[in-house]
């Protein structure tokens, strides 16, 4: 089943699914005693040429139709991300952690996941949520400040975006273990950052998953900064994928700006997990082009030339060079994709410029399954305040349009 675009259209033109068995898989259990290659696995180099030999790690380049679809998804994701950053600068959102430059990691990994599987994202993975089919307004409700989460977890089989680092990785392990106990062929994929690998919960999640052999895929997006702190202050390991060896789990160090490699390696890990082969740790080596969030000032901790260096390794341009050289990106298709991206941006602008409907009394409605007497009492007090303010015409701005 294809992943469906946020607005109901299948993103994949002409391909029923990524998962129709057309591609070769590396489902056999890899050696878990040897360190992953220190040279990242790469299927397309920065010039857009197909890579051959040992650098591919034995993974095959996805077919042109799949690559075209990944390209489309990345272009849409990039336009969305840029639009949301602009809206944040205009004050429409409280904050927005951009994934600009990380589209290959985000889109390559999430596109390998089936609709029946579960996704456990972090706050930086909004573009993966968009690709998963979640509406822009629902993704951004939390960053606008309407509520802590704005989408239906069950409808999209996607947990709320976790803010406390690495905590969601344990949820992914627990959910996928439960599915396994139920004999449901469900995989859980979670994303975490390089900084998060220093957290105790990352260790516990990797270890529980390996001991229990849960169908879990850990995508570590190594964007090289935890807010301002570089990777060298997080780890002495040569690569973050090396950590997998200590848990007895396969680890892959992947060029995180090569969407073809991210997709192929993730898909193989998902299929291995689904077939009972246990968890996999995948590190995508990428770079956070934007600041941590709009309230960050990256000029205080990194040089502009480093950012420029990575901008020249842009994941979308890389794939575009390949598709163009293969004659797989005709001008009309490129235009159509650009138009689709503009449409997503326009829809995002529209939904984020509209006034949010918030209801202060809802504050009390979801804390417990059964309302508590003390909360009903407090709810009554707030309702009286709101009614009084409304009656006197002095409705505080914070409560505007809110009383019910």
């Amino acid at each position, binding site marked *: 089943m294809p992943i469906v675009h946020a607005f109901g259209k299948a993103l994949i033109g002409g391909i029923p699914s990524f998962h129709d068995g057309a591609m070769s898989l590396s489902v056999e259990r890899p050696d878990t005693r040897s360190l992953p290659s220190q040279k990242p696995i790469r299927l397309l180099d920065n010039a857009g040429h197909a890579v051959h030999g040992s650098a591919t790690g034995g993974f095959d380049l996805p077919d042109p139709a799949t690559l075209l679809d990944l390209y489309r998804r990345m272009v849409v994701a990039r336009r969305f991300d840029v639009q949301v950053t602009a809206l944040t600068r205009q004050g429409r959102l409280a904050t927005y952690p951009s994934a600009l430059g990380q589209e290959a990691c985000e889109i390559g990994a999430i596109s390998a996941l089936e609709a029946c599987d579960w996704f456990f994202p972090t706050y930086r993975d909004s573009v993966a949520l968009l690709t998963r089919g979640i509406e822009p307004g629902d993704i951004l409700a939390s960053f606008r400040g309407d509520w802590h989460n704005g989408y239906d977890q069950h409808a999209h089989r996607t947990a709320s975006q976790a803010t406390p680092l690495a905590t969601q990785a344990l949820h992914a392990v627990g959910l996928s273990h439960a599915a396994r106990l139920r004999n449901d062929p469900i995989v859980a994929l979670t994303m975490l950052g390089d900084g998060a690998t220093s957290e105790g*919960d990352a260790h516990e*999640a990797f270890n*529980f998953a390996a001991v229990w052999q849960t169908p879990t895929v850990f995508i570590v997006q190594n964007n090289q900064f935890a807010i301002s702190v570089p990777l060298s202050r997080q780890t002495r390991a040569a690569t973050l994928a090396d950590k997998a060896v200590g848990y007895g789990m396969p680890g892959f160090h992947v060029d995180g700006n090569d969407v073809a490699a991210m997709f192929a390696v993730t898909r193989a890990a998902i299929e291995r997990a689904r077939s009972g082969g246990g968890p996999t740790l995948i590190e995508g080596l990428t770079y956070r082009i934007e600041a941590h969030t709009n309230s960050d000032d990256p000029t205080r901790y990194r040089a502009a030339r480093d950012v420029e260096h990575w901008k020249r390794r842009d994941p979308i341009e890389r794939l575009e060079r390949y598709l163009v050289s293969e004659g797989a990106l005709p001008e009309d298709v490129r235009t159509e994709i650009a138009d689709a991206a503009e449409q997503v941006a326009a829809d995002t602008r529209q939904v984020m410029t509209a006034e949010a409907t918030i209801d202060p009394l809802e504050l009390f409605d979801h804390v*417990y*399954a059964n309302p508590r007497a*003390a909360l009903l009492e407090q709810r009554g007090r707030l309702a009286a305040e709101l009614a009084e303010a409304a009656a006197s015409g002095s409705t505080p701005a914070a409560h505007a349009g809110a009383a019910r």
Partner: protein
Amino acid sequence: MSATRTDARPEPAASAPATLTMAGALNAALRDAMAADDRVVVYGEDVGPLGGVFRVTDGLQSTFGEDRIWDSPLAESGIVGTAIGMAMYGMRPVVEMQFDAFSYPAFEQMVSHVAKMRNRTKGRMPLPMVVRIPCAGAIGGVEHHSDSSEAYWTATPGLTVVMPSNPADAYSMLREAIESEDPVVFMEPKSRYWAKDALELPVRTAPMDRAVVVREGADVTLLAYGPTVRTALEAADAAVAEGLSIEVVDLRSLSPFDDETVSASVRKTSRAAVIHEAAQFGGYGAEVAARVTERNFHHLAAPVLRITGFDIPYPSPKLEEFHLPTPDRVLAALATWEWDLA
């Protein structure tokens, strides 16, 4: 979601009264809950072949198998964090923390996710799970084995926190906690694990969220929970000789707080004291004293007292008897009120 609930299965027929310890009653509650509902899974440290360090899970693995009850890696955040994921998938995990000072590594998962998930997701993602925490002291435990951590959990909106004081409540409240749609912190007073009662199972006592008057009296209300219910009852016995009639309320549920039952008792006696093992400063008794006073000030003849452990880290085994509230200390505290003015 293929999880099926086998609640069509009948409850085991009530057995003839048998003498059970609190640990035995908890074991029976887990056994009956696992038999009644195949979504119930149990895991933690040493809960499998060993049956738990307090034997609360004794024999369950041989009955239900390793897919229903198993030993997890030794990591409390991992235990609670994975239980969240299992509950998200429709299971009803019951996890054990072994000792309450060992629950602290799970603090982030408890406070940031267990307590908040339902609210964050507007009720779409409830977390029906139970975190069992053997708690409190008086068992001669070395450091980190006798803490009273209840105030950390009760200060966290979104958590339901209960503590039984006797075997019947232990059985009934654990069954109810496992059936709850919300996460429950189920605190088990270690010093009461070996307390015995004659029980007919399956027993159902008062609802989990209600306090219970366990001894009626006219002059003073003692508010106690878990291990201090016995302390309060012993103080009440001793007070009879002094002509003092003490009512004892077993709070049972620390969050939510049963204002109705407590206020009714306090308005009858017009004097109240709360007893707990935990330190006084910022402890659970502070909340109890404040809300009892707020709601009943004009019915009170004296300030609400707190009879608690000292404001010190929990002492070593040879010193704990000097720290814990005793019946004598309770009566001495009550004597500080100006009774002649009443």
